[in-house]
């Protein structure tokens, strides 16, 4: 269960990004972030050690359709 809170979001805004957030804004952002944080945490365990983002482009080519290429 995500531990992201409004206070955490306000702190990040202030320290990392140098601006302040209101309470309502921080609450809405927290509600948006929490499910993504939970999903990210859940799927992260399935990442294999040697993978990297650019492997996607290779896969796209490997798995591509061959019809119509003459």
């Amino acid at each position, binding site marked *: 269960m995500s531990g992201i809170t409004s206070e955490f979001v306000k702190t990040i805004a202030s320290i990392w990004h140098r601006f302040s957030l209101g309470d309502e804004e921080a609450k809405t*952002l927290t509600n948006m972030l929490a499910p993504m944080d939970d999903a990210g945490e859940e799927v*992260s365990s399935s990442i*294999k050690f040697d993978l990297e983002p650019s492997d996607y482009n290779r896969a796209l080519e490997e798995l591509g359709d061959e*019809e*119509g*290429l003459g």
Partner: protein
Amino acid sequence: MTDFLNFDLCKTSELIASGELSAAELTKASIDRAEALQPKLNSFISLEKDEVLEAAESIDKGLRQGESVGSLAGIPLAHKDMFYRLGKITTCGSKIRSKFKGDRTSTALSRLEKAGALYLGGLNMSEFAVGPIGNNVHYGDCLNPWNQEHTPGGSSSGSGAAVASRTVYGALGSDTGGSIRIPSAMCGVVGIKPTQTRVSRFGLMPLSFSFDCSGPLTRTVRDAARILHTIAGHDPKDSTSSRRKVPDYETECDKEVASMRLGIPSNYFYDGLEADVDRLLRDTRKIFEGLKVEIVSVDVPSHDHINLIWAAALAAEASTIHRKWLRDRPDDYGPMVKRRIEFGLYQPATRYLEALTLREKYLRDYCDTVFSKCDALLTPTMPAVAPRYKDLDVGGGESMPELVLMLSRNTRPISYLGLPALSVPCGFGAKGLPAAFQLIGRPFSEGKLFRLGNVYQKVTDWHNTIPAIVE
């Protein structure tokens, strides 16, 4: 006599090439319609009357002199106002870039121009291409040609409205999570989001480096095939663009479909459909069965996590692009747009990189489990027809994330995977608003999608129905 504005692109192109219709006459008619409908639909942000007429006359002159012209010679197009042109204002639908002049010309636009296409103007869009609704607090909301109380969909709102209202024959849009397919479906036109890397992103306003695609919205599948063939292919200016050969998509349109297999997802895509959309998708399936396409049931991998990690990665990239303005000019964003971009500021870099790293695994899983059983998936593009503006939360409040999720639930997982998807109108639901199906294929299978979409349009007439606002 402007009936020719109601013809499709390919037919009109033949008329121009044969001299039966001049590009200048066509362009004048297109401008007249754009001006007549602007107060009703607000499709355009800019209209370049003098420049486009001059270009049309130049095409006519070339034709009279027997010069060889391109496959789009004299065809008026207009594009989402986020494709840069050197020295020309490209607003990106925003206040922040309202005076931004392009420092380059987009490769897609250069290729269209080389093929003889005409540039009528910049089209309305969601601010910075964020949001599936089509509203815009800076330039005014674009309205749906079928019913002006309803949204045209976004973010390529003006592209959908201008093509549906027979103002232009085609329009480029961009699609990061559904922004071509959603307005195509809501406006009753064809739209294709190509495979990731199929079309150069050079000169396209960035929203997400990983998920941005551009592609055409048109009246027919064949028209889309022609435009995509023109803009697709490797571009040295976009190192991520694929080096694969581009098939002749129009030839692909005419190939046989009888041995093809169409997958009907047994989970996810058909959940929670409006009754009319459900009925129209059942009708669509029967039509394909009648065309001897084999229908198979397919279990698709879960999209729940895909949807969430797509959103996390998109927001991380968008907030990186926008961080300076979010800090220095926060009040110059519309509230919904600002909210959807800024939440990327609060995620760790590891979460973002995990989302991108997992993309390869999900793509392989999808191809193994889905495209080993069928050539393409048949799904609704949208679970419902276009909603009314007044029923939508466009202020970035509590219900906004849920609204975005509902409108893009069938499109954004496909953007994460980077697969090609073609949206084709398939009838009319509540209040005479269009519905559409989506064909999804393995990477670089646009030709197969065009083949299926084209044969469907050969035996149906939805794409020839014209909104009353035009008549």
